[in-house]
């Protein structure tokens, strides 16, 4: 299992979630976060915004679905400008469902 954390533009996150749900990856967690990238925020006029609002989508999927999910996110979150976001993939050793206590997704 892998945990996929995608930090995206808030306005694209809804479309990404919809596309993922249509492809069968319904379960997800959304966190509203603030962050910046290599460009150190943006400069609008004379004001520098150091931290920009982003939406982090967090989901755990099977190893074989990772590439599909990444492709879907890339497809829907792409605008071509700086600030489209990043996707991080990290290992997950086990998952439990609290309601049943069963192991697995």
């Amino acid at each position, binding site marked *: 299992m892998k945990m996929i954390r995608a930090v995206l533009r808030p306005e694209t996150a809804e479309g990404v979630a919809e596309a993922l749900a249509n492809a069968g990856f*319904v*379960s997800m*967690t*959304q*966190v509203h976060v603030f962050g910046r990238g290599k460009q150190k925020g943006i400069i609008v006029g004379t004001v520098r915004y150091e931290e920009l609002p982003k939406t982090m989508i967090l989901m755990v999927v099977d190893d074989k679905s990772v590439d599909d999910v990444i492709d879907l996110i890339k497809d829907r979150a792409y605008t071509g400008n700086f600030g489209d976001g990043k996707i991080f993939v990290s290992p997950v*050793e086990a998952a*439990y469902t609290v*309601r049943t206590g069963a192991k697995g997704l």
Partner: protein
Amino acid sequence: MKEIIAIIRPKKVGPTRNALEQLGFPSMTATAVTGRGLQRGIAGEVNMDCPPELLAPNKPGGMKYIPKRLLSIVVQSSDVETVVKTIIEVNQTGQIGDGKIFICPLDNAVRVRTDERGESAVL
């Protein structure tokens, strides 16, 4: 060291915290998050009674994302089983939406105050 990420009901945070404290795991990080599971949020549950012509056509009612708390707890590898068992015991209501628990490996930890590294940086 393992990181236990538990996504649970907001009102169960207190009982979970108390139960873990009793066992000697007082430290945790909690984040307010929203999410949904295989049931695609809550369909129709928070709808009011109103004439159908007032509703947006072709739009499902209910909540798309449900408020949850994400707890992140870092423990020694040998304690994972105990903590998971406790979280499941406290949070189990038998209804859909009880949450999920994920166990993730962790390479290192640093205690900022003393610059301790590794296992001793975790409680």
